[in-house]
């Protein structure tokens, strides 16, 4: 029994060698008998290196401005943006560098202990005691997001920076106090609005839907009290 095991073990050990010693003619005979299964051709997604895409993305985000002393001073503040055009460089099908031109609206809602007001045609903020008054402040900006994106199948990851150029700002005050009837809005000069803003963002997408995170290291209002930094979380549609 031991001898049989030894012999068989030796055969297993030398079998590869036996196979490698087969003359080429015999090997060809074996190969000719083998069946070849045709493989499905991989769909090669051809990509252009340079791409221009209009209306590449739309997004909706929620600002978080309640850090430190600004806790409870802001209501739901949002941003909406959409892309007008994006220029992308795609050296491979899975990495790209893009720059776009977006239109962005931000709305900051002041809560009960805070108020946006217009003083000398310019926006400012006030601490107020009128619980019936609510105000909001909106800006319209042109932004240039620059992003490096990696695509792994349906998953997309990108990170970059967005340069924000505020164009117009407006405040709106609403009061429920019957006697005051102070439902008014005013367009500000925008002098208090920080002229050049930027943010850092990261996105994660699956197919066309994604989530984003933006961090604003500069305050929206330069001189009026406003959170020094804030961040935004949101969702977006990637039509690129």
């Amino acid at each position: 029994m031991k001898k049989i095991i030894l012999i068989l073990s030796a055969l297993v050990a030398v079998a590869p060698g036996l196979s490698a010693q087969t003359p080429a003619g015999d090997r060809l005979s074996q190969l000719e008998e083998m069946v070849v299964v045709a493989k499905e051709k991989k769909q090669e997604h051809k990509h252009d290196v340079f791409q221009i895409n209009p209306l590449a993305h739309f997004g909706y985000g929620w600002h978080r401005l309640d850090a430190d002393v600004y806790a409870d001073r802001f209501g739901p503040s949002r941003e909406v943006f959409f892309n007008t055009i994006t220029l992308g460089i795609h050296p491979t099908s899975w990495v790209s560098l893009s720059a776009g031109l977006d239109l962005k609206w931000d709305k900051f809602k002041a809560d009960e202990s805070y108020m946006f007001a217009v003083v000398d045609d310019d926006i400012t903020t006030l601490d107020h005691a009128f619980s019936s008054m609510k105000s909001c402040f909106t800006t319209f900006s042109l932004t240039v997001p620059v992003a490096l994106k990696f695509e792994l199948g349906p998953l997309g990851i990108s990170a970059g920076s967005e340069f924000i150029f505020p164009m117009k700002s407006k405040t709106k005050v609403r009061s429920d106090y019957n006697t005051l009837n102070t439902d008014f809005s005013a367009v500000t000069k925008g002098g208090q609005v920080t002229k050049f803003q930027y943010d850092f963002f990261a996105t994660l997408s699956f197919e066309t839907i994604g989530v984003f995170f933006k961090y604003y290291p500069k305050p929206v209002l330069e001189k009026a009290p406003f959170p020094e930094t804030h961040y935004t979380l949101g969702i977006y549609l990637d039509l690129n």
Partner: protein
Amino acid sequence: MKRFIAFLIALVPVAAFAAGDGFLKGKILKLDGNESVTEIGGSSFSLTLSGISNSKSLSLLDVERALEKVVDDDKIAMVYINYDHFSASVSSIEEIRTLLGKISAAGKPVVAYGASLGNSSYYLASAADRIFLHPAGSGSLTGLGTTQYFLKDLFDSLGVEIQLIRHGKYKSAGEMYIRNDISPENREQYEVLLGSLWSTIAEEIAASRGLSVEEFNSIVDNLEVGIAETWIDKGLIDGLKYRDEMEQYLCHLFGTTDPAEVETVSIRDYISSLKKGPSGKKIAVIYADGEIVRSGGDIVGEKLAAQIAKVREDEDVKAVVFRVNSPGGEVVAADMIRREIELLKAEKPVVASYGAYAASGGYLISAACDRIFVDNTTLTGSIGVFGMVPALGGAIKKVLKVNVVNIGTSPHSGMGTGMQPLTEEEKAKYQESIEDIYDDFVTVVAEGRDMEKTAVDDIAQGRVWSGKDALTIGLADEKGTLLDAIDYAASLVKLDKYRISTIPEKKSFLDNIRELKNGESDDYDPLVRFRWLLEPGFHAMAIMQYISL
């Protein structure tokens, strides 16, 4: 325990098959029919009526090195040969076949394909494990033959007289000018020679195809192959395929249906990836390729002698392979080379390797080498001397109506002008020179081959021998390729790793341009070809020119 044994039993074929790797993996090395293989390779220019033509060829050494590397190269899975238009001498094909055999023995398939087959292309293709032919292709096998032309009647009608002075009844070069038919000695020589060459070719082809030599010769003698189907019927090829079917066949061997997944590499590209080996220790391959002349030709005696002297002084060169592919030539030029080889041999091992021919002067220059490697189909020997003296005075008078008168200070001042025949006295003197040169030739061979002069004389007499017969009669030592000779030379100096340097080097396209522009000191002089008519020489040209395969 029983389960364990059953497991081991089952494992044996699995292990064997798994190690057999299933489909082929790697690249296909392609030997394209449009390549030609010459001794030195490189670029050669020719000026033609339609302009300059530049043809490139591969050197046999590079091809052999490439094929030898394939044996152990895991990146190359098989060799594919397109045998159409493949150009190489019979002995080069013999050497290439040897290496293809090694590749096949290593388990790597060799597949050949083409559209027409002849003696030469089939000799090459038969080394393959599979031979395919285009369904509309055809070919014929006609054996070896020679066609000779005899010009005596033509010369007589023109008034040209040629005097042939020779030693060696088999020294047939020159007979075409003085006879109207083949001499019995010459006929005997050719019959034995062609028989020997053909026996090599037939035996190798028959062995490759699993036929007996008789069966194969019967196919040839009865012209039994012609159109494509006949080649299959006789078992000389394995199938008929169109080009797209051939492509699919190759894909199948690699387990795919997509040609884009099968990688090929041309032999030219593969050669360029060969490593040169470490510098500092070299084996020099010195080529003597062509006719030996004093100036204006393939092998210029003084020039090659100077190159050999340089190799002798080069301390990095540890051993030398003298690759001879020459039908002979002028006495003085050949002796210059012989002398330098003698001096070289005193300092370093010199191994001779013969190509298509190493005859007459080609044999003289290499007879003293330490060892001589031949191919079975090499033409060698032709140990003999002859000289030819034309007398054109009669022809000039008859045809051009010009009378030639010679005035001189001695009765022999007209000797060597080519206008008048030699007198009996002059002929006797010339014969004496021929005998002296022949004796010297025999002495060189006897000393080089360690044979008695009488024994050399018996096999000399100007007779041409095949390499196969040369091994039997002592004119060569071993059948082997150029690489075998190099390996042997390396073994004599105990070198495992070395660089091969070649002399002369391959000519590039730019080298040819420079020569064309600057001229060479040995520029080809068309009239130099007629020098051999006046001077004794070692020529076996007639044999080499007229044997066709």
